[in-house]
């Protein structure tokens, strides 16, 4: 009965290059395990720097990428063994909001096209009136009006408007999970709060869970319930967001949290830029050993602790 919505087990993705697979391989994501209950809906943050495997994870969950090993189960079913119809059903349940709102829209069509293809393929409405009502309802939720935006071309709208349209589209499909891959990183700071509020509202009022992928700890702290911290494709700390940020254990987490600029303090600019964070991980390491630091907070402890 209590089947989790999404269950990820030991997910690993290794990119190989050329014939010599051994030497030039890049381990993008390793031994990632997570569980998203679905009820009650939660916002789960996947945090980490660029190249830490966040987007690889998102692409694997959405089915755009085959992982090297590990499994993803959706409501108890293995995603990689889905038939065509099951993939189609899975698409309705798991939607996404991408990072770059400018590239998600086909430049050939007005922005209303993203609603049209969803309507046509998922047969959401029986007639034009239903279509308009559903679209209007979704748009009103994100504070937009159909007659103002739908007939515009993507390049005529702002990034914030485009991103809100994306969320409206995802909401209209009434999914159980939305993967938000850095949804606010390319948006004006003044509009970020609005997008994040919409996400929280969708979670609270409509029971939609989110996987919120970000490198920004402050927004994660604001909205998310749980958090997984990735470092070189490896999970180093996981658990309750507030507990992790208030009591970071892994040296990498500490460093990341220390590097958040705050408005009260003058920036001193004495952050070390280490070489190790730039080079890509090329070896597959054994699965991480988590220690329970406090209830709902696990971390991989290193010698320095």
């Amino acid at each position, binding site marked *: 009965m209590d089947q989790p919505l999404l269950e990820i087990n030991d997910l690993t993705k290794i990119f190989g290059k050329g014939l010599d697979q051994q030497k030039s391989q890049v381990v993008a994501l390793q031994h990632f395990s997570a569980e998203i209950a679905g009820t009650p809906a939660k916002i789960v943050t996947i945090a980490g720097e660029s190249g830490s495997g966040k987007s690889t994870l998102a692409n694997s969950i*959405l089915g755009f990428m085959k992982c090297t090993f590990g499994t993803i189960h959706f409501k108890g079913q293995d995603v990689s063994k889905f038939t065509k119809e099951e993939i189609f059903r899975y698409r309705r349940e798991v939607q*996404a909001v991408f990072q770059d709102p400018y590239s998600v829209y086909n430049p050939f069509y007005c922005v209303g096209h993203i609603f049209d293809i969803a309507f046509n393929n998922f047969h959401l409405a029986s007639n034009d009136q239903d279509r308009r009502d559903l679209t209007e309802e979704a748009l009103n939720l994100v504070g937009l009006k159909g007659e103002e935006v739908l007939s515009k071309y993507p*390049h005529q709208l702002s990034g914030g408007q485009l991103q809100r349209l994306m969320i409206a589209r995802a909401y209209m499909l009434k999914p159980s999970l939305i993967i938000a891959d850095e949804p606010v990183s390319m948006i004006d700071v003044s509009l970020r709060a609005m997008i994040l509020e919409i996400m929280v509202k969708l979670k609270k009022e409509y029971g939609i869970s989110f996987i919120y992928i970000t490198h920004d700890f402050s927004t994660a702290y604001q909205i998310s319930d749980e958090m997984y911290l990735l470092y070189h494709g490896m999970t180093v700390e996981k658990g309750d967001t507030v507990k992790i940020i208030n009591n970071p254990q892994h040296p990498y987490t500490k460093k990341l949290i220390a590097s958040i600029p705050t408005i009260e303090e003058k920036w001193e600019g004495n952050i070390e830029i280490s070489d190790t964070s730039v080079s890509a991980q090329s070896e597959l390491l054994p699965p991480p050993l988590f220690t329970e630091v406090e209830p709902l907070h696990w971390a991989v402890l290193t010698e320095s602790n």
Partner: protein
Amino acid sequence: MKSRVVDRNSSKSEIAEKECRKKTFKSSPWKNPKLIIGATVLCVLVFCTLIGQFIWDKTLVNVGSSPLNLPPVGFEYRKQIGTWAHPLGTDNSGRDLLTLILVGLPHSLGIGFVAASIGLVIGILFGFSAGYLGGRVDDVIRLLSDTTMNIPALLILIIVQSVIPNADFFVMALLLSLFAWQSPTRVLRAQILSMKHSDYVKLAQLSGASDNEIMFKEIMPNLLPFLIAQLTAGTSYSVLVLVGVEVLGLGSQSKPSLGITLNNAINSSAILRGMWWWWGIPTIILIVVFMSLLLISVGLDEVSNPRLRNQ
């Protein structure tokens, strides 16, 4: 009260939807002035020459069929006055210039168009396989197109022409197509590479679209103007190379063409003798052809790239 508000909203969004459809399908992208002017000029020119084939006496293209050195209508040259029998004048071997253009222009344009079409078909095949398959196939195709692209077409054609002196229509078109496939290959490969992983293709997948739908509804509309632009640019390039070869006195001498007419005019010192119509009129026709082809390419570029359009 409440129902009225709802009504007004829905009628507004109805209007918005209609506006959107109008913009997409009727007016905005394809109603580009450059594209329309270019296409109109080219169509008028081609249409006139095709009609002229039927109403004008084509035997006037033969040497000695007309009086020698006759100027166009309304001009006088060495006590000869232009007549309506030869409205654009004649050359020094008694060939009617209007007939030369009527027969020569479709010939030159035809060779250019066929060469560009062959080039485009090869380009689509190579570009799609390079873009989709990637890996080794991509490496080979890219190496091939990049290296052959830098070989000057004129040089190769001059050498080949000395071996095959009287190349006919299709041989010539095939020879020219050897230099017309690289550009479409590169352009299509790049486009497909960037579109294959684009977010809007991902979004269409998330919206449950099939592969066919993604190819034809998402990628193709964005690629179509590129294809036509490549075709016109290829035609323009092939005609340019063809005329260049002919002006040098190479190419098939059995069929009249604009390049051969120019070659004759140069060889007979038409400029020194003041016979401006002999070299001037074919040159003007060529300029008009190249300009209209250029306008079509530029116009199509604006169609395919909305940011170039006037807001």
